């Protein structure tokens, strides 16, 4: 029976988050799911990719089976859900399309943020897990290995992952260009908004040492400070504490400015000329824009940061045709290779069948030719061997060529039926 690679799944484009989270599969559940999938007689290999933006099942299924119906039902039932709940959220690809899809996913071309690199690690991790559980084999092993190498090639030969594509990462990049290393720096958060916290997390990941938090509601400031092992102070004491901050992240919901030039200039004097980076992510803005006239003050508001993100994404978008060309080239090459691999089994079966016919005919003939010497008997055997080889030469070459050209599976099925293989 001929097998083929298929993928079924949902992602951020095909399904809303509430549907995606219903299907999400934590790592601890994957072994049992993979075991259940591969116990199906029509599925020989499987790998599940479950991230915050997608849940996908890559598998090797019998050709001819209604793979979409089977896999969508299987995926829904894995999580104890009814298929109807997903409507037409599932997408399905098989053969060359499935190969192309995985290559695009691993390269970040199918991600919410074009060109993001995190998904490459997630694909590697999912594959490693499935491989360690013995759920992958001769089809999925080369497929995932190739997907990872294609992803590497795309990132090195194109600029698809160049630049910062989130507000928080852009803010941290500017901070690094003001201070160099952030390891001895202190960040001050004004307000306890989500984006401010995200920016703080990015800064902490780059080594920011101290965290100061202030907020109109002091209790919330204390909670945030506790979460990041920082120090909270009442909002009324902002002016007295300003000089302690190297990086100031402001994200309050105040309808007016919360920091003015005069407050900052006295803080700068206490900082003895050391620069200060201010990230104003509030709308309406928290920081009086005139502070950027002060020497040693670098101010970035949400528009400045988003403009950088947009520019990055524009550049990445321009790289897309180049990436797609690489993916097309690689997936066609991979598909041809696997077809050639697939057809080699067919060729060996063909050879074996003809060899059996030859032997049985010889076994019938030789006892009847009693006058043959040992040498003549060997010549007859040799002749039949050559005959079979010559008869099969052209069909085998044709099979290899059609396989390399990506011929439709029905062609090989016809060959099998013709010779009863």
């Amino acid at each position, binding site marked *: 029976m001929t097998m083929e690679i298929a993928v079924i799944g949902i992602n951020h484009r095909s399904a809303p988050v509430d549907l995606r989270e219903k299907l999400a599969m934590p790592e601890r559940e994957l072994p049992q799911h993979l075991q259940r999938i591969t116990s199906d007689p029509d599925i020989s290999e499987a790998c599940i990719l479950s991230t915050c933006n997608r849940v996908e099942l890559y598998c090797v299924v019998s050709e001819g089976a209604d793979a979409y119906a089977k896999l969508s039902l299987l995926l829904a039932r894995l999580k104890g859900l009814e298929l109807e709940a997903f409507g037409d959220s599932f997408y399905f690809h098989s053969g060359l399309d499935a190969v192309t899809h995985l290559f695009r996913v691993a390269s970040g071309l199918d991600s919410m943020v074009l060109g993001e690199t995190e998904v490459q690690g997630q694909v590697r991790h999912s594959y490693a897990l499935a491989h360690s559980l013995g759920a992958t084999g001769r089809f999925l092993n080369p497929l995932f290995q190739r997907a990872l190498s294609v992803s590497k090639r795309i990132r090195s030969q194109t600029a698809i992952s160049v*630049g*910062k594509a989130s507000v928080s990462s*852009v803010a941290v*990049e*500017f901070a*690094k*260009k*003001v*201070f*160099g290393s952030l390891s001895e720096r202190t960040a001050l958060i004004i307000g306890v908004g989500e984006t401010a916290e995200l920016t703080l997390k990015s800064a902490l990941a780059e080594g920011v040492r101290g965290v100061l938090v202030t907020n109109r509601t002091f209790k919330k400031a204390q909670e945030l400070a506790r979460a990041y092992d920082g120090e909270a102070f009442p909002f009324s004491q902002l002016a007295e504490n300003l000089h302690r901050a190297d990086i100031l992240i402001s994200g309050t919901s105040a309808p007016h400015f919360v920091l003015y030039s005069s407050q900052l200039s006295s803080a700068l*004097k206490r*900082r*003895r*000329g*050391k*620069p200060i980076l201010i990230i104003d992510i509030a709308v309406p803005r928290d920081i009086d824009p005139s502070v*950027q006239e002060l*020497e*040693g003050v*670098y101010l*970035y508001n949400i528009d*400045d940061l988003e*403009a*950088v993100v947009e*520019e*990055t994404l524009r550049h990445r978008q321009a790289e897309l045709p180049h990436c797609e060309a690489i993916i097309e080239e690689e997936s066609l090459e991979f598909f041809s290779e696997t077809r050639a691999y697939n057809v080699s089994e067919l060729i060996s079966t063909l050879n074996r069948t003809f060899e059996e016919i030859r032997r049985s005919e010889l076994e019938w003939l030789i006892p009847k030719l009693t006058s043959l010497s040992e040498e003549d008997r060997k010549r007859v055997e040799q002749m039949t061997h050559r005959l079979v080889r010559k008869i099969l030469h052209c069909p085998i070459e044709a099979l290899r060529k059609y396989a390399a050209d990506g011929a439709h599976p029905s062609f090989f099925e016809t060959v099998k039926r013709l010779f009863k293989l």
Partner: protein
Amino acid sequence: MVAAVLYAVGGAVEFAHLLGYTRKKNLAGHTALVGGFFQLLFLVLLSLQKGVFPTADRVGVLHLFVLCAVSLYLATKYAFKGGGLGAFMLPLAFALTITGLLVKEGLPGAESGRTFLRILHGLSAVVGCGAFALSSTTAFAYLVQDRQLRQKRLSPILKRLASVGELDRLSYRAMSTGFLLFTVALAVGLALAMGNPEHPFFPDWMVVWSGVVWVLYALLIHSHFTASFGRRKVAILSILGFAITLGLFFSLLFVRDSLHKLAGG
């Protein structure tokens, strides 16, 4: 000539790297290293020809000055990872090396009367000037990076040039080192002049000019330490300070009417 070409190539490569045209970030450093080796070789051969090392001939002094500046740049590049500085330092090294190739040698008298104090005076002055050269090019890089940050774009220059904090620290360290060496040179020069009653050291124009340079750098270091000037002003003034120092350096090499013998012919 080989050193000059290598400095020019290194500077061009570093500039192309800053603009994002090449990813070869270490090529400029390696090129400058080879250029420095050729310049050292030239100095050694020149000294062997004169019979003294280091030669006090103005061609030799000019090459020694460039070599000091390039060596300090390389030390900065490899030890402190001062990214992108070659784009500013190596063109200066190229221009000064070409100047060194164009000038005539001084009189043989410049080599006479060499004592430990004279060598200490000359070396500390030349190495000090090399440090001022590094300080001013780093200050220039600081101004470029500061402008990039204020334009609020993640341009290739912003990404590849060191941070303003690092550039400011490097410039300050180079300036302090240069100032220390220049002070030693002035003190030793003063001692030498006082020991020679035939040549009154004041009001010699070279002494006055040196004093102006010393006071300027003393003020810059003080203002940086006390943060009485902004960092941008300090950067601009350190470039100005180096221009004045360079003027003094070339005057010493070419103007005869001074206590100095380097002016030669």
